[in-house]
Structure formats: structure tokens, C-alpha cells
């Protein structure tokens, strides 16, 4: 059973001011939620609350019905997948060693890691035998991100956190990886939070969309209801997406 996530009245204060301001957001077990908003809206900070990379100044974060505490943080993180735009592959480790990071921390034997990595890489269209022993610097951007996805999924996480994972990729690869991620989620449901500033991507990847602005939740709606949402900022996102679509057409 994938873990539910509940963020309740969370504010995060930094020297520069309030990053998050009373954010409340609950994500049900197996649900997928996209967080959208302009740069600096607090999307990434909200996402990072879930794996404790950002700690609330006030309010609470519950993952699998339990509050995050320093005592359970490391164990929780090993069951939460994390994919970021910068990928963050360990440059000194081979593809296989990168993918095996969490399984090694969990004490999986090497043959099990290799078997799971093989299945997943083949699934992500990265032939294992060709890539397993390469280093990240020998891969293209798209290949690196596939390895990043494999690293986040190999241990079958309960929650998957994605922070603009496809933002730096060309549109074709972007579309392909979105599709792959959706298929993988269909086969094994996991709770997902997906940060993006691209509305079409948000609608494609998630069943529910949450709009953040200036650290606050401004709108929270089902992806299917996008046409009914009247919030001006949401309308602006829709219009700009339409305008871009028209340009690309």
C-alpha cells in the first residue's frame, strides 16, 4: 500500500522571508499530484518537505500517517524515490553502482541489485549490458535522466518525488520519458508528487493539480476540471500553454 502524505499548515521561514506560508496538502495513497507555479512559488520546497530536505518552521508533515522525525528520517528516505532536473548522478560511480545506491544501503545482495537493475534499465530502453559499467559523464542528458529514474524506482518506493525531472530534455525525449513513467506507475501504484512549471506536463502526469504562488496554495483541482477553474493565475497558465501550443503547431 503506497504511503499517503499529509502536509498540514506548514510554514517555512528562511532569512530571505517566508518560503511556504501555511501550506496544507494531502495526497492519498497511490494518488498523483502535480505542483505547478511560477519560479520561486515554493513548489520545490513543498516537495522537499516530504523527504525532509526542507523542515517546517511550523505545521506538520506526515508520511504514512507518521510524522517525520530525525529518528525515522533516514529509514523513510530509503523508501521515497527522488528524481530531480539536475539528475545528480554520482559522477564517480558506474551506472549500475548509481542505480544500486539505495538497495546497497538496504543491504540487498549484489545479484539481486543487478537483476533488478537489468529489468528496470531494459524497461527504460537503456540496454543493461551496454550501459551498466559506464560512468555518467559518458551518457547523454536523456540517458542520464533514465538512469536517474531507474535509481529512484529500483527499490520500489512508496512515494515518488519528481522535481522538474524532464525540464532540461528535448521535447521528444521528454514525451517518451513521461510516457514510460506513466506506464511504470500504472503497473505499480505509488504516491507521486510532480513539480513542474509546464501545465500540459502537469495535466499529463497527474490526476490532480495544485497551484502554488508566493508560498501558498492558490488552487487545488482535478486535472480533468481544468476548464472549470476560474483562478486568474490558472487561466494565465492555460492561456500561455495554449499560446505556446499554437506557436509549436
Amino acid at each position, binding site marked *: 500500500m503506497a504511503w499517503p502524505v499529509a502536509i498540514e499548515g506548514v510554514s517555512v521561514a528562511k532569512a530571505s522571508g517566508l518560503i511556504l506560508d501555511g501550506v496544507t496538502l494531502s495526497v492519498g495513497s497511490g494518488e498523483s499530484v502535480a505542483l505547478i507555479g511560477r519560479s520561486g512559488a515554493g513548489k520545490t520546497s513543498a516537495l522537499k518537505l516530504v523527504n525532509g*530536505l526542507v523542515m517546517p518552521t511550523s505545521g506538520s508533515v506526515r508520511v504514512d500517517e507518521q510524522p517525520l522525525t530525525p529518528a525515522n528520517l533516514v529509514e523513510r*528516505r530509503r523508501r521515497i524515490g527522488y528524481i530531480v532536473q539536475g539528475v545528480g548522478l554520482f559522477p564517480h560511480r558506474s551506472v549500475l553502482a548509481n542505480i544500486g545506491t539505495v538497495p546497497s544501503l538496504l543491504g540487498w545482495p549484489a545479484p539481486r541489485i543487478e537483476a533488478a537493475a537489468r529489468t528496470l534499465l531494459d524497461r527504460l530502453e537503456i540496454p543493461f549490458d551496454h550501459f551498466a559499467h559506464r560512468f555518467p559523464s559518458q551518457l547523454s542528458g536523456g540517458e542520464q535522466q533514465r538512469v536517474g529514474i531507474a535509481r529512484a524506482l529500483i527499490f520500489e518506493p512508496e512515494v515518488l518525488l519528481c522535481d522538474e525531472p524532464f525540464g532540461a530534455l528535448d521535447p521528444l525525449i521528454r514525451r517518451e520519458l513521461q510516457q514510460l513513467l506513466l506506464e511504470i506507475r500504472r503497473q505499480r501504484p505509488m504516491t507521486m508528487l510532480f513539480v513542474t512549471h509546464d501545465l500540459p506536463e502537469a495535466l499529463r502526469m497527474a490526476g490532480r493539480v495544485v497551484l502554488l504562488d508566493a508560498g501558498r496554495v492558490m488552487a487545488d483541482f482535478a486535472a480533468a476540471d481544468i476548464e472549470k477553474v476560474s483562478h486568474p493565475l490558472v487561466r494565465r497558465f492555460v492561456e500561455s500553454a495554449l499560446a505556446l501550443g499554437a506557436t509549436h503547431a
Partner: protein
Amino acid sequence: MREFLENHGAEILRMTAEHLAIVVVAVIIATTIAIPAGILCARRSRWGGLFLRVADAVQTIPSLALFGFLIPLPFIGGIGTRTALVALVLYSLLPILRNTVIGIREVDPVVREVAVALGMEPRQILRQVELPLAAPVILGGIRLAVVIGIGVATIGAAVGGGGLGTLIFRGVAMVDSRLILAGAIPAALLALIADFGLSAIERKLSIRSGDAARKED
């Protein structure tokens, strides 16, 4: 020339070995102090600044003057190898310390954050991520310490430190340029070989830690 080498060959070899030994021991001692201190400095910027300033100050003292300061000190000073060793350790600290701090601070913050997010504990992050990625830079500091050490150890002979400097100083006193060269040439060769060998290892480590573009295969 042949006669000179026949008479002094064994001595030159012995002095070269002695010279190398004192530098290696000093750098090993300095490394065991500077790497942990560097890790601490990279974490706490206030400590870092203080340590680096002290090491920096030591580095600016001319070597003969530093020997002069050390000789009157009880326990660590006096005339002999010990004083030379202490001075060499002090000189070796800065490059290793500074490069350890830089190497760790230069680790890509995204990589470090992902390590945290994947559930690595601080010690695992240090051992499995930060130190391997900083290794080429740290080794660069060690290389610098060795090269500086080989030079300073030559002057160490002035305080009875032994090594190739002994031949040079004796040659100067006896106005015998062959004796001077018998000390100077092996000292220069040692420095060049150390620099070349350690640079090669450094390059290898850089490639492993992904610094160099490796798209060729």
C-alpha cells in the same frame, strides 16, 4: 667524474634515500592531520577560516627562519632530523588542508542533496560521495606538499636534518661544485619524478570522478 662517483656514489644514494624518507614521513604525518582538519573546516566555515589562516601564516615564514624558530624549542626543536621533520610537517599542512577544504566544498550541491535524499547518513555521504569526489583535488595538495617538502628538506640540512642538502652545504663550504651538484641534481630529479608520478595518479582519479569528459567510447 667517474672517480667522483666511485667515491661518493654510495653516499649520494644514501642521502637520496634519507631525503626521500624524511619527506615521505612528513607528508604522511601532515596528511593524517590535514585531511580530518580539512573535513572539519569544510563543514564549519569559522573553524575553516581560522585553520587556513594559521596554516597560511606558517607557509609565509621563510624556511630558514622557521628552522631558526624551531631550534630553541624544547621537545620538538634542537639540531637534527626532528626539527627538519617538524618544519616539513608544518609546510605540508597548508596545501593538503586547503585542497581538502576546496575539494569537499566543490562537490556539486545537487549530488550531495541527492545523497541525503536517498537516505545516506552523514558518514556515508563523506565516505561514499564527498571524499571520492574530492580525492583528485586532495591528491593535488599532497603532490604540492611533496614537491615543496623536497625543496625545504634540502635547506633542512642546515639544522642537521640530513638528506641531499648535506652534500650541497658541504660543497659550498669546500667550494666543490661537483659536490653541490651531487646534492642538487638528485634533489631536482626527485621533485620532478614525484610531481610527474603524482600528477599521473591525479589525472586517473579525475577521470574516475567524472571531471574529464569521457564520451569517446
